């Protein structure tokens, strides 16, 4: 772990207001990514993992209140003027999203969209040079026949090819950090692995810091260096990926691991965590997870747990790393 992380989020909070009352969707997330490191962020839909990362780049929905600190390469992003943020977005920090069909502009050719990404941050580059760059980028993400493909519209691409275009667009300006928000969720299972492969290869080749947001812990197993588990707007566990799988400290993480289908074991029913995550602004008292927790005790109903750390492995559970944790 180096002294200064590439990207560091501290106590990030995002609140949505209606009629003067605010409800926090992100309740103080802290995490960091080192240069060239892959951080996985895992959590259910609505846990605040996407909103948090969008807000870190100033892309929160209208009317959201963002507080806390987001530092990129030593620079504070929260409260940075829009112009300055814009210069970073797409150049040093890039993002790709879940559904590549709705994430691409349907009435612009793929070429136009990639060239735009290039030229937004290189205004002096000629259209011709930008087109050359676009061609190289398509080759980089292994899209054959780049010349023909550039002149086509998104609807003429398959789902996997579209996501490759999104990736090409994201790495157009050699970013330091790529935030991939559920990059494979909307794709066919067979294509998911291919896209992960493209991402992993680019990450290694371009030495990208990569934040991989997903609800599928299984995706992270082979690809992340570290994992942050998010529940109800907070990071509940953070650890190196092997450590996390070997020794999950939070019952929620244990639940997530248990619900990964295991091909080697003959099992009729897949494990699932009972209940649903709390709705926005309707948090239970004490630990936010206790109503769904099979190991919850008296203290969990009264007191929200703080992070306990043990050798770079942190978990927000009253019973984390306790010797009696064999309950689950």
């Amino acid at each position, binding site marked *: 772990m180096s002294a200064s992380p590439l990207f560091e989020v501290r106590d990030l909070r995002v609140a949505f207001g209606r009629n003067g009352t605010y409800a926090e969707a992100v309740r103080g997330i802290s995490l960091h990514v080192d240069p060239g490191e892959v951080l996985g962020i895992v959590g259910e839909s609505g846990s605040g993992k996407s909103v948090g990362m969008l807000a870190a780049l100033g892309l929160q929905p209208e009317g959201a209140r963002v507080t806390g600190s987001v530092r990129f390469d030593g620079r504070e992003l929260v409260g940075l003027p829009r112009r300055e943020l814009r210069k970073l977005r*797409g150049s040093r920090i*890039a993002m790709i999203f879940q559904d590549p069909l709705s994430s691409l502009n*349907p009435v612009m050719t793929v070429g136009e969209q990639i060239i735009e990404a290039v030229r*937004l941050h290189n205004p002096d580059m000629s259209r011709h040079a930008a087109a050359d760059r676009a061609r190289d980028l398509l080759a980089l993400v292994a899209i054959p026949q780049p010349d023909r493909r550039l002149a086509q519209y998104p*609807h003429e691409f398959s789902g996997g090819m579209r996501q490759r275009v999104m990736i090409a667009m994201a790495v157009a300006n050699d970013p330091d950090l790529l935030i991939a928000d559920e990059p494979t969720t909307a794709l066919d299972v067979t294509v998911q692995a291919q896209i992960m492969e493209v991402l992993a290869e680019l990450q290694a080749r371009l030495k990208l810091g990569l934040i991989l947001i997903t609800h599928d812990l299984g995706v992270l197993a082979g690809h992340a260096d570290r994992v942050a588990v998010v529940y109800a707007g907070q990071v509940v566990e953070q650890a190196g990926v092997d450590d996390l799988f070997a020794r999950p400290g939070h019952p929620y993480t244990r639940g997530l691991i248990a619900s990964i289908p295991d091909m080697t074991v003959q099992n009729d029913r897949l494990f699932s965590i009972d209940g649903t995550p709390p709705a926005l602004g309707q948090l239970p008292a004490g630990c936010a997870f206790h109503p769904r927790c099979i190991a919850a005790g008296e203290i969990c109903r009264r007191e929200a747990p703080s992070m306990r750390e043990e050798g770079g492995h942190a978990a927000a559970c009253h019973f984390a790393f306790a010797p009696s944790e064999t309950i689950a």
Partner: protein
Amino acid sequence: MTRYILRRLIAMPFLVLGIVTLAFLLTSVTKGDPLTAIVSDRQMNNPEVVAAAKARWGLDRSLPERYVIYVGNLLSGDMGTSFITRRPVAQDVLYRLPATMELVVAAMIVGATIGISLGVLAAYFRNTAIDHGARLFALFGSSIPVFWLGLALLYVFSVQWGILPGPGRLDARATAPPMVTGFMTIDTLFAGDFRLFLDALWHLLLPAFVLGWAVAGTISRLVRANMVEVLSREFILTARAKGAGEFRVVIRHALRNTLVPTLTVIGYSFAYLLTGAVLTETIFSWPGMGSYAVEAARGLDFPAIIGVTIVGGIVFLFTNLLTDVAYVVANPRVRLG
């Protein structure tokens, strides 16, 4: 694409025949007796005069006979002779059509420009004073009748304040340039008279605005609704994540996506504009098809009424075709074969 246009063009004569038939039949079922337009009241009692007039205008023939003769003549470009002007209807209409087209096109430009701008602003600044103002503007435009608006604006801007010219296409003292296209703004340029061009443009401003306001209102509401929807789509987030500025996000990414439905409405508003032109032309003494149609209707000038209807119908057919072609050009997801 070419095949599609060809197919539409081939269908065109049949549609025109439909319009002709309808216009002809509708005119013949009206209660008005065209004879009153031809023969003076005093001569009405003179059977010889009446019989002669009937024979002269073919009114003694049966309806099917008249229809066949009319369609036959139409094939050679003959739309009959006007009862009132005593000139060939085709000639009258061709002479007046450009004036109407100039007015309608100008109104369309005014309406589309104002409508799209207001719609974009209202969507981007939704639920602010700008949005409410745009809504009010649209409401006025579509609820105030053209004839009232025309008279009111003419009174305020021309009579009271004197900052805009009165009715007509040119200053009353000016001599019109030789007719080339019939578009005053173009013909004055052909004649090389720039001051006359400005005068023509100046005279066009108020009637075009009066006629275009309602269209601006409709378009602004449609653009606003579409923009609000498009601005919430994910590719807008992608554009922002790429580092695009707000202006680029709104104009290049969002507006381009709302253009498809907007084009359709602009195209179809043509019919409204043609109808609205009738009243606007009457108020602004605009020598176009509209004022011609009003005179024809007043005087039961059947050949003129049918002629105007047919020409209006053909113009409408062509703008529809143009709209559909524009629709395809703007929307890459539609492929016509």
